[in-house]
């Protein structure tokens, strides 16, 4: 156990979830247009993903940005790697790259099973079916 449980929890969540979106609010109730747009792209592809609301604890955003070297929210990670924020995810959605990265055909086929629900001290909104 390190001295930074929030950072550990974020790193565990990124590692344990094949597709995970850090956002303001939840997919059902996004609190920012950029987060809403990014979640909508995932929904439109029928992707399964975990979502973390960063708003309840300011340390989540602080530690997340320190880990990812990315200053803004939302942030989408696939297989442990930062894919990007709203702009990049939107561009990739429109070009079809996002479906490829997510392993979906763009027609609503669920991604292969892989990620498991994690027990982290953050509220993870599980979208894993």
């Amino acid at each position, binding site marked *: 156990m390190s001295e930074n449980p929030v950072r550990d929890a974020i790193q565990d969540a990124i590692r344990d979830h094949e597709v995970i979106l850090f956002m303001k609010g939840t997919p059902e109730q996004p609190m920012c247009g950029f987060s809403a747009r990014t979640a909508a792209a995932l929904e439109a592809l029928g992707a399964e993903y975990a979502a973390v609301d960063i708003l309840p604890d300011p340390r989540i955003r602080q530690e997340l940005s320190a880990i990812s*070297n990315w200053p*803004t929210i939302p942030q989408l990670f696939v297989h442990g790697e930062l894919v990007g*924020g709203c702009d990049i995810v939107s561009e990739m959605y429109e070009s079809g790259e996002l479906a490829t990265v997510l392993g979906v055909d763009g027609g609503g086929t669920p991604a292969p099973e892989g990620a498991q629900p994690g027990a982290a001290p953050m509220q993870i909104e599980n979208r894993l079916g």
Partner: protein
Amino acid sequence: MPSTDDLKTRIEAAIPGAHADVLDLTGGGDHFRATVIAPEFASLSRIEQHRRVYSVFGTEIGGPIHALSLETRAE
């Protein structure tokens, strides 16, 4: 409060040969969109291109600059 001209000037000063077009999305001086074209982007991934532009503003992103939406390309 930063202006679109401030952002444009700072991006173009920090990234050699860059051309930036900056819009104030809301008129409130805190939500911006920038299109940045710079030769050095040719050797950077899209993530790295955005990081490069964000790095011009450091902790101002998320602070005084609430949002900076980006489109980047090499030419």
